[in-house]
């Protein structure tokens, strides 16, 4: 599903070169929930951007869903992202002047779906994340956890194969963080999505199938996640029912 071969990413800062990723090779299979972990500056967000088609490698090759992203133009990358990748960011990043449903509808503006279909699909996505009743609320009227769930609905509304999340629990309290992690796990489990998450949150380890640790731009080690090791069901507090 996702294949990175000997990938490096070098940034220029004035006369200096910063090697954010250094010859990283990585493979992520379809339907896996994967965490990228490591200290700040380790290159995990850079790796996420590369495999999501937001950035291009300086060296190496990135293949996602059968497409070699290095070879795509900017417009083709945008189209690729619209069709194959859903994004969740740390600070929710909803458009403040749009309602929850309208925020979820945004990616569908890029499709050929009619107005009624767009609306229906957005409502369905909101029901999946348990916010069917709050579709007309504005972001400012919602809690952080609810806003992040709207962001998840927006990420899945166009039914992408891959969902990438950059610190999705970074701005949430423990309870909401656990709910978001469980929701991401359910995307993998119930909808077959490949979920790649950058996180500092150690609680995330028990929800994922595998964890790739990065340090100073290098892939340090890969370990099985809690979901892979125990195969046990999550604790009651984490086990929430998504409204589908």
């Amino acid at each position, binding site marked *: 599903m996702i294949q990175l071969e000997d990938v490096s990413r070098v940034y220029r800062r004035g006369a200096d070169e910063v090697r954010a990723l250094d010859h990283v090779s990585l493979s992520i299979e379809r339907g896996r929930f994967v965490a990228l972990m490591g200290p700040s500056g380790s290159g995990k967000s850079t790796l996420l951007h590369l495999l999501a088609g937001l950035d291009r490698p300086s060296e190496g090759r990135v293949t996602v869903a059968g497409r070699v992203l290095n070879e795509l133009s900017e417009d083709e990358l*945008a189209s690729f992202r619209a069709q194959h990748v859903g994004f969740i960011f740390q600070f929710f990043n909803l458009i403040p002047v749009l309602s929850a449903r*309208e925020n979820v509808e945004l990616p569908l503006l890029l499709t050929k779906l009619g107005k009624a279909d767009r609306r229906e699909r957005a409502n369905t996505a909101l029901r999946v994340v348990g916010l069917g009743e709050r579709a007309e609320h504005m972001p400012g009227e919602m809690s952080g956890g609810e806003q992040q769930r709207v962001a998840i609905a927006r990420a899945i509304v166009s039914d992408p194969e891959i969902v990438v999340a950059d610190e999705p629990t970074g701005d949430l309290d423990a309870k909401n963080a656990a709910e978001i992690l469980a929701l991401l796990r359910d995307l993998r489990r119930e909808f077959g999505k490949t979920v790649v998450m950058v996180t500092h949150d150690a609680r995330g380890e028990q929800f994922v199938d595998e964890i790739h640790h990065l340090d100073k731009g290098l892939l340090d080690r890969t370990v099985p996640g809690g979901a892979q090791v125990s195969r046990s069901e999550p604790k009651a507090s984490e086990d929430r029912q998504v409204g589908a």
Partner: protein
Amino acid sequence: MSWTAFLWRNLARNKLRSALTGSAIALAIALVCFLATMPEGLERLLDSVAANTRIVVHDSAGVAYDWMPYAYVEKIRAMRGVVGAASWTWFGGAYRSEEGVSFPNMAVEPDAVGVVWADWHIDPAVLAEFARRRDGAVVGRGTMERYRWKVGDQVTLQAEGYGRMALTFTIVGEIPLQRAPHFLFQREYLEQAMAARKWHLDGTGMIWLRVDDPARVDPLMREIDDTFRNSEAQTASETEKSFFRSQFSALEGLALLITIVAALLAVCIVFIAANTASMTVRERMREIAILKAIGFSRRQVFAMLIGEATLLATLAGALGAGASLGLSRLARAASGGWNAQLGPLSWFIVTNTILVEGLFLAFFVGLISGVVPSLGAARRGVAETLREVF
């Protein structure tokens, strides 16, 4: 949600800023629309005040330079096709010394007034009284209202150019035109007053005449000028419209100046709108990065941002152009072409063509002001922006 709704919501996110920018654009467009009426308005104004069968004759050196012999009046009256002719002698009297000469006061032959200026529709009874009474004066309605004069009032005018001569007149009637400020009195009255001072009034500044057929105007003007070509005072004849146009030439220069200022104003508005667009884009860098991340292409981001700038400018332009159209129609309806308060303003009509030009101008203001910030935001790399804003 549609694209239009999305643009609209973005415009409404900072209502005060959008309202202020929109107001600036609306005001500028309204001003430009009004100024665009100047050339046609002046022409319309000339058409309204100038008859197509009236000719004015003055010294070829210019109206202000020399007088023509009074005998020219009789010679012109005798020419074929001339219905009537009147001398037109500037008195230059001031009603209130502190105001100076505040309306044109002229000595004329009363018998000729009703013929040469038949289109003024002065009451025949008034004309008869004007001819009968040597100190009589007929006064334009605008001046009558301005000084709250009424028929029968006695008015004294003092003229510096005639050795501080003061003449007292009795108003015998009005010229029923708002746009006519004239104060006309008998030439004979002035002649007698001058004779009392041992002066002799033997010339006239201008001669107005009316011809029987518009087709005779050009030949007659040539005939008049040819007749006096080798005389002591050569003449220059011109149509009333041509005469007024030369009087309005200073106004046309002013209109050109105002048009240049308006064009500069439009450029300023472009900068103001561009500044607003830049601020809007800068504040929304994170949102724009998110839109790009979820699949909006550079072209779509550019279209969205330029669409917002253009929509705001066009809506504001429609408001401004519509307001100028409404105001000009209101002024015209209220005054019927001339009004003591509005003066000739109501002749400057915002037409549908000007309205459309105003809308296009507003559209281009939005387009030009939005190009640079929109292009910058669209071109910016998404990963680079995400690194900066997160």
